[in-house]
């Protein structure tokens, strides 16, 4: 029986080559796209699961929520926390730390490993993270203060070979260390991105120096280390978490204006496998994935499969009349409906398996480029990885069954007495096909709206909001500091348009508070302190909305440069958010008034707000931030405070940015032995939106896949309709219809479902994308035009798809058409 079914299926497939190709190509494309998304999603969910005992290892993080301010998540903690946690919780088997080094590594041959990410690590690091050693003994590799561990990539970059054990490496300007071991590269699905592990036990390691500083009485708490703890096998994480509050209250010391700092702190313990799935935190080693986006992508994969299945169902039922006789004969011969269903389900599964082969080939071919784009090492070893192979087959079988169920039911319900007499088939199938086309185009239009919105939001975030030549603004590394001897010499170069010194808080890299006493009563207003130099506004092109910018002409503006210990406050420039929060009705109203505010500064080695002091508001400027549009720009006060300047920002002339940068680098190297490092603002912004850029590209690609699939479905239907309507078209021509009339007739027939599709797609897409945009504090709006363009594009695609075939039909001589039937 199977042979008979198989023969019928194969010959039917070969007899209708065009349909077969369209059908198989559509299914293959759907499978390939869904497989790629599934591989990507699987990779995202697989982070750090390769580490033995990963379910017992936790990254210690912090949520800091000072009164009146929104919470900040940190994935770094103080260097002292690991030891304190281990002491306080017997459940913790071991704790280990990592701290970024930023030091440059080079060899005796002056071979500098380009962009190697080096981290200081505790001696027991490889006990918690037992990476595979290629050479050397990992157990004691970091126990000596002058021995380090390289990954094979770092070894190759520095020594052009992997077996570099025993070689010496210059670390930073002065230190020389010996390679104790070489480990395999960390896979891309790890939240760690280390190339070099430096000995945390070295005397100049921040794990040593910062720990010593943090232990000083009254020391300011600072977060510089990644702390990991591994629980004992029998320990309960819930028990540990339930005692974290008490631990925090006793461990985090100090107060701000009498309020214990500990009240603002909450420690978090994130299982290693979940680190990549957490919301963004300050200090993340790698940008985490937004799980909602991942779910959306899985949704897109399902939609693509739905569109592909839709095509399949549409084609199978459209061609049903060609199989009707077969069904009738088989039923007359005694086949039950169930047997006919099984036959056609089997046939659909066979189609599915046939489509799987080109899909697998396509994934193999595309995967290297896909990996390159995502900077991943996603593997597709379906032969060696049974779960992947079975998953593929499972996907095929499920899709085959889903796509085959309706055609099988539809075909098996044919009444033999009707089909064997040649009675025309019921029109329900035609309505079902029309509904499928509407559904497919609704999905396509919704994906187009999503793609347009994601791209518009990126454009808004990167271009519209900053309105800055981001490729001309250079953020120097904080390691360089802001030495006046260097900034004073810069004008001699003549290549730098402006340079400013700023604090990390100004750029949003950390947060220093100001506390305004509201002039109109009510509570105090807590804001961000942005310590800047005169030229800050020049560098970032910020113009005042009202008032004047900070200037050397006004002595009160630069008060703190002259007297760091003064209790007086310098003149400030505030942003619109601050003006609003302070109750001014307009920016102009704020200018010239005196605001009472408190400045956070270090007094007697402790971080404290100084007493209230009035100073003049010189200007109100627009809300500005180079940070993510996800975050609200809060009230900000700009004032000059050289004591907290931590980095330089340069603005170059547009013409010769690279040469200018080289000149600055040369000048720097005359001033300092440390290397000149930093990044352009566009690099920073692109890194900030890396996830959104990736999402945008993925949405664009898979929307293209959906477009091709929907177009294929329509093409198949167009061929079928034209075939079925040849006689009708011939008659219309005999009755005097012109070619354009026929084209309009066919065009309208295919335009109608697309127009209906808009009615479904628009509200759905609006709701979903509006929700997505709510994730950004500042976002673009979804204009009516977006929907109109998406609808028009879908219509254009539909008409372009059927145009060629319709043209052929319309040009045929009427007698040929009439003879056809």
């Amino acid at each position: 029986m199977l042979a008979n079914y198989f023969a019928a299926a194969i010959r039917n497939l070969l007899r209708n080559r065009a349909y077969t190709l369209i059908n198989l190509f559509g299914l293959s494309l759907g499978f390939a796209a869904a497989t790629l998304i599934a591989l990507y999603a699987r990779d995202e969910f697989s982070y750090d699961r390769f580490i033995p005992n990963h379910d017992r290892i936790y990254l210690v993080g912090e949520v800091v929520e000072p009164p009146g301010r929104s919470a900040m998540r940190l994935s770094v903690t103080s260097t002292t926390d690991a030891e304190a946690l281990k002491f306080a919780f017997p459940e913790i088997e071991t704790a280990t730390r990592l701290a970024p080094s930023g030091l440059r590594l080079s060899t005796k041959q002056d071979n500098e490993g380009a962009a190697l990410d080096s981290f200081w690590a505790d001696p027991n690091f490889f006990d918690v993270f037992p990476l595979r050693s290629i050479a050397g003994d990992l157990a004691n590799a970091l126990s000596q203060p002058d021995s380090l561990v390289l990954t094979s990539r770092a070894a190759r970059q520095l020594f052009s070979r992997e077996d570099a054990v025993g070689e010496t490496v210059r670390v930073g300007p002065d230190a020389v260390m010996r390679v104790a071991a070489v480990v395999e590269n960390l896979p891309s699905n790890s939240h760690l991105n280390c190339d070099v592990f430096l000995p945390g036990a070295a005397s100049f390691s921040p794990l040593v120096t910062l720990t010593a500083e943090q232990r000083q009485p009254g020391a300011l708490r600072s977060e510089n280390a990644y702390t990991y703890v591994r629980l004992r096998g029998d320990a309960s994480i819930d028990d540990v978490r339930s005692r974290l509050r008490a631990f925090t209250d006793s461990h985090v010391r100090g107060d701000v204006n009498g309020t214990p700092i500990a009240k603002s702190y909450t420690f978090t313990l994130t299982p290693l496998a979940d680190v990549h799935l957490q919301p963004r935190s300050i200090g993340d080693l790698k940008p985490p994935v937004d799980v909602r986006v991942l779910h959306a992508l899985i949704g897109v994969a399902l939609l693509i499969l739905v569109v592909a299945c839709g095509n399949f169902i549409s084609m199978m039922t459209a061609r049903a009349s060609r199989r009707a006789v077969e069904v009738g004969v088989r039923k007359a011969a005694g086949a039950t409906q169930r047997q006919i269903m099984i036959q056609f389900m089997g046939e659909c599964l066979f189609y599915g398996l046939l489509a799987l082969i080109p899909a697998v080939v396509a994934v193999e071919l595309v995967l290297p480029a896909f990996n390159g784009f995502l900077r991943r090492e996603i593997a597709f070893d379906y032969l060696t990885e049974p779960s992947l192979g079975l998953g593929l087959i499972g996907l095929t079988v499920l899709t085959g069954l889903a796509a085959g169920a309706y055609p099988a039911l539809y075909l098996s319900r044919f009444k033999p007495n009707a089909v064997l007499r040649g009675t025309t088939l019921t029109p329900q199938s035609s309505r079902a096909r029309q509904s499928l086309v509407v559904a497919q185009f609704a999905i396509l239009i919704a994906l187009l709206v999503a793609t347009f919105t994601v791209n518009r939001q990126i454009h808004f975030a990167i271009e519209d909001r900053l309105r800055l030549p981001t490729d001309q603004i250079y953020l120097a590394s904080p390691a360089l500091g802001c030495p006046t001897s260097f900034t004073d010499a810069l004008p001699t170069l003549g290549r730098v348009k402006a340079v400013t010194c700023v604090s990390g808080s100004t750029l949003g890299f950390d947060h220093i508070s100001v506390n305004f006493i509201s002039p109109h009563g009510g509570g105090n207003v807590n804001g961000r302190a942005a310590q800047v130099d005169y030229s800050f506004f020049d560098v970032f092109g910020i113009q005042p909305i009202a008032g004047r910018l900070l200037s050397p002409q006004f002595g009160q503006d630069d008060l703190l440069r002259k007297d760091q210990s003064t209790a007086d406050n310098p003149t400030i420039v505030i942003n619109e958010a601050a003006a609003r929060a302070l109750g001014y009705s307009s920016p102009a109203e704020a200018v010239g008034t005196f605001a009472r505010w408190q400045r956070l500064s270090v007094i007697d080695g402790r971080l404290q707000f100084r007493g209230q002091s009035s100073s003049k508001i010189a200007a109100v400027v627009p809300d500005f931030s180079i940070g993510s549009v996800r975050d609200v720009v809060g009230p900000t006060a700009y004032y000059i405070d050289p004591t907290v300047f931590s980095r330089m920002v340069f603005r170059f002339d547009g013409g010769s940015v690279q040469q200018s940068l080289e000149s600055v680098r040369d000048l720097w190297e005359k001033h300092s032995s440390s290397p000149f490092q930093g990044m352009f603002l566009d690099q920073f912004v692109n890194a900030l939106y890396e996830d959104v850029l990736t999402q945008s590209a993925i949405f664009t690609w898979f929307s293209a896949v959906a477009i091709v699939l929907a177009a294929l479905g329509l093409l198949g239907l167009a061929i079928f309709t034209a075939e079925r309507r040849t006689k009708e078209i011939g008659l219309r021509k005999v009755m005097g219809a012109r070619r354009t009339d026929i084209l309009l007739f066919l065009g309208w027939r295919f335009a109608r479902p697309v127009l209906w599709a808009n009615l479904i797609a628009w509200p759905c897409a609006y709701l979903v994308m509006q929700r997505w945009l709510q994730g950004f504090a500042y976002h673009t709006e979804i204009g009516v035009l977006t929907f109109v363009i998406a609808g028009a594009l879908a219509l254009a695609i539909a008409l372009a798809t059927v145009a060629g075939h319709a043209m052929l039909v319309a040009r045929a001589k009427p007698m040929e058409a009439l003879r056809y039937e």
Partner: protein
Amino acid sequence: MLKLDRICKTYRTSDVETAALDDVSLEVRAGEFLAIMGPSGCGKSTLLNVLGLIDSPTSGAYWFMGEDVARCSEEQLTLHRRARVGFVFQNFNLIDDLDVAENVEVALLYVGMARAERRSRVAEALERVGLKHREHHMPKQLSGGQQQRVAVARALVTRPKLLLADEPTGNLDSANGDAVLDLLGAINRAGTTIVMVTHSAEHAHRAGRIVHMLDGRVVEDQEIAVAC
């Protein structure tokens, strides 16, 4: 063998009711060769479908080989039909995607027969209709007469007790039509009961009995003295 008692079959659309069979009573004896004649739309094919269990009557009783099947479900009718009834249609109804032997084999697929036996039965049936040498041809490669002979082979391969033929010569020229009639005559003589719908008086007279129908009713039941 077959007994219809006051069988009615009506088709309903939203506002029209059409009686295809109107109070038809008829008995077919085992081994008979019965021809049904009448103008188009008089209910001949509907009667044949009811007799062959591929359609159910709206009312009345139908004893099929001694069992009342008028109210049987689709599934039960299928089981009764399986291997007991063979069909031959005017438009041959061969499956385009299967070759001659495979088309004939279809009739045996659902009776649970071993493959080897199926093959030998197919060869025998094709031998009987003189088309053994064409077993691997596709239907499109055969003439109309040959296609109808394949259909006959398919109908008799299960060795059915009843063979129903709906205008089996309607699409054939007279020579091919006569050849098919000869074949049906031979099958009948071998013991198979045959009910045939035809427009051709000449072909009808090769049967042993002719039933005339008009507007869904049997208007005349005529025994022919000398069968083919």
